[in-house]
């Protein structure tokens, strides 16, 4: 959230208070509950059962106006809460994770990590996913009606996406949802579509991933991404922030067989990754570094997707002025040099850019940095344009 939208949001917070009093004093959300749902502490539970069905669908595999490609975060250009109709199909895609190293990944939306979904605490997500692993899906030629994700991908296709076919059963598990996993997160076969809802009851930065067995392989093959649930009252520094970026750290376990790279299970079990990346490529944040000016306050939404390793995130030359562990505004730390995150842990971190120059972003577990977990932020002088 930028300075621009802060005023808008303050107005919203006021409106929210009033609406909440008028309608249902118990709900966190400005949206009503549906039949059969119940509320505890203002949060909504007891959502309807998932539907699994078959549909003819060959249109945009990612839909939702707040679905963005890394490192972007879509702005929330509305006040109060709203319903997000989101589609994120799962299918195979050949992606590059290091120069000359590409593999047939299992993906959400065609990139690894998948698109970032941005919602606000109290929003409701109506989620649809078709398992299209049995068809080649092109993501570099944006379809009308698709998410902003496609334009961002087309502008910087650093994973060199190529359609691939790899029919497999898959599922979707949103850590941002509070539901019965055996219902909503159930596995669907190629050709099937699942639809379910979840309510963003808690703010934070969350992982989503495939939970189909064998889960280590499905995640190591690329099925994960981030959901940012912004607190309904915002973060206390919203009016000070100049830039927001999303970074997802993850490991790859690849071995070369012939001319191809394939999943190396022994390495995955031994937690011995061939590559550790920010945003899915060892050069993602080096070839296209993050940008800011001296004196700017930069906010990073950071998720360590694992699947198995920790991350000790550090900005060389910076100190994190504020850190909200897991992205929840209640969990505030100050003055952190490094933020330690286990697999599927996250944080919102802010630092002030001290002067113009290059600021390396690293996993300070240097064995991981050497495997690729490094990026850069380029800062121009304070008065530059």
């Amino acid at each position, binding site marked *: 959230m930028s300075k621009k939208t802060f005023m808008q949001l303050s107005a919203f917070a006021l409106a929210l208070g009033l609406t909440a009093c008028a309608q249902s004093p118990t709900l966190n959300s400005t949206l009503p509950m549906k039949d059969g749902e119940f509320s505890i502490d203002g949060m909504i539970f007891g959502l309807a059962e998932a539907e699994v069905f*078959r549909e*003819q669908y060959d249109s945009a595999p990612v839909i939702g106006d707040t679905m963005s490609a890394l490192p972007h975060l879509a702005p929330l250009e509305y006040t109060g809460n709203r319903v997000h109709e989101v589609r994120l199909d799962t299918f*195979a895609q050949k992606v590059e994770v290091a120069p000359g190293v590409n*593999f*047939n990944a299992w993906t959400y939306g065609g990139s690894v990590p998948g698109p970032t979904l941005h919602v606000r605490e109290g929003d409701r997500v109506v989620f649809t996913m078709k398992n299209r*692993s*049995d068809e080649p899906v092109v993501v570099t030629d944006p379809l009308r009606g698709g998410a902003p994700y496609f334009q961002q991908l087309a502008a910087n296709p650093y994973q060199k996406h190529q359609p*691939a*076919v*790899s*029919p*497999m*059963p898959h599922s979707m598990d949103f850590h941002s949802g509070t539901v019965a*996993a055996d219902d909503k997160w159930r*596995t669907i*076969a*190629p*050709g*099937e579509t699942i639809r379910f809802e979840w309510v963003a009851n808690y703010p934070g930065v969350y992982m989503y991933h495939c*939970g*189909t*067995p*064998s*889960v*280590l*392989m499905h995640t190591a*093959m690329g099925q994960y991404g981030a959901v940012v649930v912004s607190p309904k009252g915002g973060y206390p520094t919203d009016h000070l922030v100049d830039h927001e970026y999303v970074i997802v750290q993850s490991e790859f376990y690849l071995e070369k*067989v*012939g001319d*191809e790279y*394939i*999943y*190396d*299970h*022994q390495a995955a*079990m031994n937690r011995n990754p061939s590559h550790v990346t920010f945003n899915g490529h060892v050069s993602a944040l080096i070839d296209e570094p993050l940008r800011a000016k001296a004196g700017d306050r930069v906010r990073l939404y950071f998720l360590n997707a694992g699947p198995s390793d920790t991350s000790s995130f550090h900005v060389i030359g910076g100190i994190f002025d504020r850190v909200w562990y897991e992205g929840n505004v209640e969990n505030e730390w100050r003055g952190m040099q490094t933020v330690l995150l286990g697999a599927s842990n996250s944080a919102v971190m802010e630092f002030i850019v001290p002067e113009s120059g290059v600021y390396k972003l690293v996993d300070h577990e240097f064995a991981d940095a050497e495997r690729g977990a490094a990026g850069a932020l380029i800062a121009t002088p304070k008065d530059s344009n």
Partner: protein
Amino acid sequence: MIKRARSLALCGLLVTALPAMSSQVVIPAGEFVSPVILDQEISRVWVDAFRLDVQPVTRNEFADFVRKHPEWQRDRTPRIFHDGGYLTNWLSAVEPGSAETAPVTQVSWFAARAYCEADGGSLPTLEQWEYALSVQRQQANLNDDDYAREVFAWYTQTPFISRAEDNEAMLGLLGQVNEWLEDYQLLLSNGEKIDFGGGSCGDTARMLANFDAAHYATFLRYQSRSNYTPVTTTSTLGFRCAYPEE
């Protein structure tokens, strides 16, 4: 006509080059140690000898079947038996149109079963198929690491890396298609109850007879196969038939 003439030539070539193609192999009786623990103990079962197709059923063979059993032609087969993708990769209801000797795919479990029944056999049971694979693995001297690599490579769609010489000894059990089995759906159980941990993460340590990459690869096959529905038709799902050995 040109297309047909070419496929004739291709067909003739393959028949002479691989005479074993149109036959079956006897899988000798023996003990099968289940690589997956389905009932809290490592199970050892005796598998009677049976005959097994030496390769997955081909598109040509399936075309012959649908000509004889028109109710299994794609435009006549009711939707309760397939998900809509049944043989949609064929030229017409009765002609594959290309790759006639390749394994047939985009067939549902119902259709695969009907084929085997019409042919006097049945789909192999899970025990039969996995046992046959273990027998052939031994015969082909395929070591555990290479086996695991082949399985992972196949599931990640890089089948051309499987060693060509393995395929004959291995009857194409690996590296060609995922094969339908009569009882392919797992029901992981815990005594009387359905296992509540099963079917998600953290199964490996509890359910593998041996904790190595080969067993994990096998478990991946068990689990992903189990997650297909009987109406599923995908471009990598085919089948072969088993027959009783008199």
